């Protein structure tokens, strides 16, 4: 699925459509890549995270993602009707204030699938693992 859309001026993280989204890839990683663009570093931090540390045996501590609603960020529903499934341990940094906002005129139903497991199994995919990505990032410094 497409990544979330970030609006630093209004502090909205907009889910682009109905469908399935991964918090780690479509929200958190997308935000980090968005920050690197233009002058987006000037905007408040949108996420912080914990977990992901390897505990051996092909397992790592389950990652948790905290959206910085305490700094004003909100996650906005798409301009579509339908169901949205967000997979991953996504929580608001400030539990007392709302994190999600509907888009007026549309009925989008959000299902947030969080894991109760303390550790998760690293899954080999065609993409780089986090460890591999880290090693890749070191290459420019060695050139």
């Amino acid at each position, binding site marked *: 699925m497409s990544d979330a859309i970030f609006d630093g001026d209004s502090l909205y993280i907009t889910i682009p459509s109905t469908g399935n989204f991964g918090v780690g890839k479509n929200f958190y990683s997308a935000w980090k890549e968005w920050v690197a663009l233009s002058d987006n570093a000037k905007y408040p931090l949108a996420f912080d*995270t914990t977990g*992901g540390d390897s505990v051996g045996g092909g397992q790592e501590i389950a990652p948790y993602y905290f959206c910085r609603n305490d700094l004003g960020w909100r996650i906005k529903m798409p301009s579509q009707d339908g169901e949205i499934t967000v997979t991953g341990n996504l929580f608001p940094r400030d539990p007392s204030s709302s994190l999600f906002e509907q888009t007026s005129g549309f009925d989008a139903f959000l299902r947030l699938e969080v894991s109760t497991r303390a550790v998760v199994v690293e899954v080999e995919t065609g993409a780089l693992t986090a460890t591999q990505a880290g090693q890749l990032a070191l290459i420019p*410094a060695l050139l």
Partner: protein
Amino acid sequence: MAFNLPTPQNLHTADATSNRGFVGNLNPGIKVGGNLPISTDGAEVINRTASDATGNPAGVFFGMDGNTSTNSYDSTQEARVLLWSLQYNAPNRIQSSNLANGGSRFWLGSGSSPNQNYKEFFIGGHDTPFCASQAGPVTMCIDISDTSNDNTIGAFDPTDITAYAHGSVRTNIVGTQTLSSFFQRAFLFTTTKGSSNLPTFTGVSNFDDAILAVQGTSYTNKIGAWLTKSGSSFFVPCPFSFGDGNTAITFNDNGASVVSPASNSQNQENFRLTNDAMRIYLDMRNNAADSVVLSGSYAWGTAADWDFNQSRLSTCLLSGNFTGMGDFKIGSSVTASGSFNLSTGKRVKCNGANINSITVTGGLNIETNTVTSFSNISVTGAMDFDTAGTYTLTNCTVNEITNSSGGAIIINNSGSTITTNTGPNITIVLPPKTLTLTGLQANSEVRVYTAGTTTEVAGVENSGTTFTDATIVVNSVDIVIHNVFYEYQKIEAADTSSDLTLPIQQRFDRNYSNV
């Protein structure tokens, strides 16, 4: 070496009966005046009260330029200082009335009948030092423009001054001796720069030259007692100039203390001065060989201006203490590192002088932008800039800055304390500081913002392992360090009031996925 005095107006060597008139029941005597040396001809009486004239003043008027001169001076055009010494006869018994009764008086007459149209100053009595017994010669120092006179008799015209006199009121304190006084030669000093009757120092000189010129070395060459020395302190009751603009001068005060009189202060009623009377000038040639060094202490009793506004090859060092005078204007020939505590409301006016390390108790005017960098100066009042431009204050302490230029003033503040910016239109800019971040992961993005804002002041898209920026002009910054493979870092309110180096440790971000 020289202290050059103008020609005296009156040597008082003529018979005292040659005069412009007198007041009182008076026998002026037939003997010539008491030009120094007094001791050789002490019986020369030119002013004597009647033996029984208690309460009634008496005195003889002499022309401004000689006993019977009718020359006239306009006191509204220029301050002029009439200066001479006089000595009472029988110094163990000054038969004068007291000050309140005008025991000793100065008269300044005008027109063709000066003894009928004059203003009167009460300058002493047997209760003041002026008429103290055994005092020796005492000083008469009157600015003819002064208006602190006690009385006006007749129709005094300040534009037509023609005569002066010493009047007395005799009182039989003891004995029956007649009250008499002997005049030394009288000077009428002008007070404007370059004017003909202004005393000047020239050659290799110091204040001892002034003492020598007036006090002489013996009775044969002593011309007065009004300029005195005690230890290393000099009492100088006249305007003067360092240099005459044409003659070489190498003056050094050798750290002397110099005092100029106040006007009409208690027990010094014989000094009547406007603020123009005791003006001092710097008038050197345009020659690098000329120099004036004033490292001593100067205490001025009147707010007379010091005009050192000279911008020539010659040099002047003002490293001493200057107290009580009026506006003190200094040009580019001058290096002023001393302490200036001028009369209330008066200011040091800098016209291109080097004033680094100057201490000003009061106000300082910067009247040109030929010098724009100042260091280690201290100003307790306001520092005003009258020329638009950019200036740098390094390690200065200034209570207030003001702008009278009508344009914009930019102050680069390098380690200075500026308490109040009154303006208008003054911008104080802090000097650039260097921010250094070490230990960065290569290809990180670094952004530096004014703290609490989104105003970027420095940054780089792809860093090396060290980031350096030497243009930080704010005291506090927020720093964002971003690399998608490492956890986002934001350092808030980093103190950049001085150079700052921060070691950075970026933690690998295990939760970032690039697919």
